[in-house]
């Protein structure tokens, strides 16, 4: 019974990371119709920032988290300006540019961190909250999930209650119609990728003390983000959040009771099935092509 509760706790904490990582992918695809393959690398850069600035050079953790968000946001905006904007209307071109970017970011990380073992960041919040004898939540994870939920809340407010958010949603529903309404698609694209990258940077910063940091860590992140994006419905933000919780619980349960690889294989198979049966996902709408 306690294992069951611990598994639910583990799964819910994991879902926060999935949601933060997937949101950016969903936003960018929704608004710009570009699959940003380098999105996992944005998360990786966020984590490296924490390792380099906080763990190696002693800048306080919370300040570094903000720094990571700003840095990754700037990276995202640069990618929009120099890669995705010239490729507007060519989804494949945008995708390939992002693959090129993925390599460049990995090499930058290798140069900053050097080859060798994965980097480790000592947790800034020590200790563990003991709920039951074998149901425990480390304070670091508790902090991460709280911040993730808070960030998603702000995003929700931004998208549903502000004019910018309204424009973002309009463009992702129908790009042409939005443009006819006088919405600047370039500006909306910048907002979308800026917000998406900020979330990715935050995800990396929150994950950093909890995981192995290496230049290739983006690969597993992007697989999870793809699955969540597809299952939730391409372009649907609420869908992505719901799918994050469902997939994290599913993956955690299968890992606990069977095997982690089986969990990932099943996730991928479910994703293909969703693509066949209901390409719009659980919450999505049909994307105009």
């Amino acid at each position, binding site marked *: 019974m*306690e*294992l069951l509760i*611990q*598994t639910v706790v*583990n*799964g819910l*904490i*994991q879902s926060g990371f999935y949601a933060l990582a997937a949101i950016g992918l969903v936003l960018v695809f929704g608004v710009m119709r570009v699959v940003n393959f380098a999105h996992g690398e944005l998360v990786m850069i966020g984590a490296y920032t924490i390792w380099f600035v906080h763990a190696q050079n002693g800048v306080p953790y919370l300040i570094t988290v903000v720094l990571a968000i700003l840095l990754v946001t700037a990276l995202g905006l640069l990618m929009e300006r120099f890669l995705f904007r010239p490729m507007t209307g060519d989804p494949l071109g945008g995708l390939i540019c992002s693959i090129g970017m993925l390599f460049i970011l990995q090499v930058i990380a*290798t140069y900053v961190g050097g*080859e*060798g*073992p*994965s980097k*480790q*960041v*000592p*947790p800034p919040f020590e200790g*563990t909250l*003991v709920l039951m*004898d*074998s149901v*425990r939540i*480390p304070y670091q*994870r508790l902090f991460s999930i709280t911040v993730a939920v808070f960030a998603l809340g702000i995003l929700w407010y931004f998208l549903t209650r502000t004019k910018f958010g309204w424009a973002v949603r309009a463009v992702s529903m129908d790009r042409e119609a939005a443009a006819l309404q006088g919405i600047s698609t370039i500006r909306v694209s910048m907002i979308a990728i800026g917000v998406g990258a900020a979330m990715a940077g935050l995800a990396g910063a929150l994950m950093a*003390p*909890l*995981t*192995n940091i*290496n230049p*290739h*860590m983006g690969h*597993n*992140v992007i*697989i*999870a983000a793809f699955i969540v994006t597809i299952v939730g419905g391409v372009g649907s933000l609420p869908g992505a959040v719901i799918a994050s919780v469902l997939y994290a619980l599913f993956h*955690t*349960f299968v*890992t*606990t*009771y069977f*095997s*982690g*690889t089986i969990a*990932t294989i099943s996730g991928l198979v479910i994703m293909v099935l969703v693509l066949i049966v209901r390409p719009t996902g659980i919450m999505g709408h049909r994307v105009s092509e």
Partner: protein
Amino acid sequence: MSKYETNDSRRKFLKQVAAGATTATAASIIPSRAFSANKQLTVGMNIPMTGDLAPWGLPGYYGCEIIARNINAAGGVTIGGETYDINIATYDHGYETDKAVQGMKKLVLEDDAKMVMMLGGATVAAVLPWATRKKVLTTTLLPSDITPDSNYLVATCESHPLYNATGVEWLARNYPEAKTAVIVTNNDVEYGLQSTALYQAAFEVAGIEVVDTNLHGFDVTDFAPIVSSVLDKDPDIFCMATSFYVTPIMEQLYHQGFDGKIISCTLDFYHEIIAKTSVDFVNGTIFQFPDFDDPALADVNFPDPGGFDAAFRADHPNDWSAVAWEYPVILLNWIENAQAAGSVESEAVTAQMTGSEQNFVFGGGSWWGSQLWGLDNVLVGRWPVVVVEDGRARIQEYGDLAAWLDANNDVLIKHMKALGLRTV
């Protein structure tokens, strides 16, 4: 040549290397190949220097560079009447098999390497047909690479995972109340499964019941569910069988409140584990790889271990791993055998090596392996049991590996077969 003469020249050689160390550290700016009239003797390293497995390749290269620097600073090494400077040629295969095949040919045919050191596993399996036929003396850290006809492949330092038996033996003797164990590791054949079979056998011999074995893939990002799952079995011992993920697993053990004994094959970068958990938590963890500043290493067959440790950490403060001293041990052993054979050529050195008594780095040293892999090309001797004390790795004792293997070979084979591993 009698055994005594070998030992005598051996001692002289080690002393000479150690003397070179003082010269070299005094002027460590001198490159390893300073202006020297000596001939070059090239030794190859076909290892991962980038990518996931770089921690088990690159530190070994750094270690060999130190040894070569010391030897050359002391005037080189004399083999068969000729004095050579040691030159280390490397090829980074990034643990990719096709690159490893190319690297082997480049090192042997273009760089003229007389011996090639490798990490082991799929990359060794890939080069083996060619290397065997061309009679290239190749070394591995994984004896499970040896096959009945791999006559030129030897494991002269690490006998992975056999030595893990010494840790389990020590644990059982010192903590007789520990009666159940769980094993967690990655599900690859070469590291994880080989090691799992050995630990299962060692636990069985020691009368400890293995209550759960969790073999996970390499795509795990979160170890919370895996650790929760095995801790639910309430084990006395938590065993990591050559895991690539020791740090995140230890972190989860810490947070999930595990208070039993932890035993692991490696505990590389344990200072980082301490930083992520606590000294009290990591203290008492049992593993198999000493730091070289350990006073208990004073009388091993290695030139000035303390000086080597200091030189390494001075050049590469954060890179020390289990392999940092292992490739140097292999290199030194090869030089000794080349001296004894009076030749640097592969066939002569291999014959000298496998046909004579060897001084294993930690003492003892007998050829073993035909029982499992069909050929006695694994050098087994005494192996240290290391425990973390006050945040430092300290040797507790040297276990007699050869004796354990002779007594418990059948149990080991049973567990290897059960996991589908190759035995003769």
